[in-house]
């Protein structure tokens, strides 16, 4: 299939999915009525649900999904490991500790996000410095990220053990990934920043092609450690922003890049936009499923993505075994 057709298909799917997502939930809104509701202006309950709750949430899902998937794509290439994802290097562990501490201390939504971001950046820096001492090899990075992840999750559990139960529930919901805090002001600033970071890393598409083929290979072609550092930190920032806004949403940064690489090939010029689109759609679909599977309850989106991600992983491994 030619690329233009693939792009048209992606856009059509995105549009349909967005309409489905806006329509489904505890109260089902017929897509045909949507223009009337929006033109009817503020005041009706449907307007509030559609414009103030579902639309920003759908947009946030797409931004977070896209940035996690782009981040995962970059990490898989830089670490030369198809099973790498942003959480492997401590992004989520540090954010979880920061957010949990913030929630237990009764901080507001923005303070929790800031604490999560700070924790995330601190954890990545620690992993980065540790692995740098071991000359930045990709396995050193993954191993120190995993080790730090264990320590951080022990610290999170320690905070749980020492706090009251109602706060623990809030903190656990955060850990499962939560898009319900979506608001337009947050979308404007951070959506723009995310887009800027994604475009910057996309400008490094040729570097990433070369880097994905190995350290010596890329060095002999003139890629510097500074180049690798740059893409590493952009990908880390993308993941850290996502996690601090929406909690730990697993597997998006792992399965989406993987699938897109199979469909669009390994070249980053195509892979990065494809991953962005795929991640946006995957998270939007997952959140829609989570909201509409058992109304009025909402299943946290992280649970849906982990279910789907785990299932994908098993199928992938079975297929790979069968392919031998």
């Amino acid at each position, binding site marked *: 299939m030619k690329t233009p057709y693939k792009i048209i298909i992606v856009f059509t799917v995105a549009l349909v999915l967005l309409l489905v997502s806006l329509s489904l939930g505890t109260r089902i809104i017929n897509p045909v009525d949507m223009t009337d509701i929006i033109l009817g202006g503020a005041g009706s309950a449907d307007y509030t649900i559609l414009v103030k709750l579902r639309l920003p949430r759908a947009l946030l899902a797409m931004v977070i999904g896209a940035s996690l998937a782009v981040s995962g794509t970059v990490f898989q290439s830089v670490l030369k490991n198809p099973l790498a994802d942003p959480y492997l290097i401590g992004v989520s562990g540090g954010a979880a500790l920061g957010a949990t501490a913030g929630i237990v201390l009764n901080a507001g939504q923005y303070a929790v996000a800031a604490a999560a971001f700070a924790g995330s950046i601190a954890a990545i820096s620690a992993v980065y410095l540790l692995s740098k001492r071991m000359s930045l090899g990709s396995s050193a990075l993954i191993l120190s990220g995993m080790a730090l992840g264990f320590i951080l999750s022990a610290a999170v559990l320690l905070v749980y053990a020492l706090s009251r139960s109602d706060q623990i529930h809030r903190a656990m919901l955060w850990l499962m990934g939560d898009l319900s805090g979506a608001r337009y002001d947050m979308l404007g600033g951070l959506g723009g920043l995310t887009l800027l970071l994604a475009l910057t890393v996309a400008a490094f598409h040729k570097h990433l092609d070369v880097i*994905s*083929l190995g350290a010596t*290979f890329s*060095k002999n072609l*003139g890629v510097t450690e500074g180049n690798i550092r740059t893409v590493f930190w952009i990908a880390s920032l993308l993941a850290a922003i996502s996690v601090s806004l929406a909690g730990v949403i697993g597997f998006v940064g792992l399965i989406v890049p993987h699938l897109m690489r199979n469909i669009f090939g*390994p*070249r980053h010029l195509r892979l990065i936009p494809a991953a962005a689109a795929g991640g946006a759609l995957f998270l939007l679909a997952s959140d829609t499923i989570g909201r509409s599977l058992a109304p009025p309850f909402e299943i946290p989106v992280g649970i849906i993505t982990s279910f789907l991600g785990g299932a994908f992983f098993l199928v992938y491994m079975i297929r790979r075994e069968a392919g031998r």
Partner: protein
Amino acid sequence: MNVFELNSITAGYGGVPVIRDLSLKIAGGEFISMIGPNGAGKSTLLKIMSGDIIPGAGSVHFNGRPLREYRPRALARMLSVVHQAIETRAAYTVREFIRMGRFPHQGSLVVEADSDREVIEWAAETTGVGHLLDRRLTELSGGELQLVRIAHALSQNSRVILLDEPVSHLDIQHTVMIMDILWKLNRDGATVMAVLHDINLASDYSGRIIGMKEGGIFFNGEPGEVLRYDLVESLFGTACIVMDNPTTGRPFVYPVPGYIK
């Protein structure tokens, strides 16, 4: 002018020296083969020349300037390296992979300029992989992949090429194809230096053979001078007989079965 000038270099991994006090000059247009037992330091020497390893002592000059003064991209435009194996075989197409050799020549927004296309097609034609351009690396045989890797190196630069065991594990057809390609490039002016395990290929194709042993140069000269049975025997610790190859007139080394010194 000398392309490479190494002055009493010492280098190794984690403080253990692999190369000890080694000096070497390579003139432009030479075809040099490096032979020697496993662990003698051949690959390490090649990595020093490509800038992958910085020697702990001594100096390395490339085209008259200290190697470490080159900006990485500038060096990449003047020096190609074909290592023993690429670490991952990703699903890039052959054309995409050869095009990566143009990376140090390109501006950041260029994917494939007309000048790049010419070089890529020349490199593919020179190595006989023009019919493979749309295939994926994952679909190639070992011999095809090695030809493609040489095409990649040529699209990067075709003046100075370092190769680490370019024909190990290949069948004789691909071995001869690759050695012929290197020979033709050298005839057109390229400086070629290859680590080879096959003494007789080194003898047939190269102008100078460097025998390495225990981190130093054991012998260094034309095939006819250095491929004497006594020298080869003490380099490798085997017994052998040297005769002339009837097709090339160069020395041909036969190891004697059952004799290890």
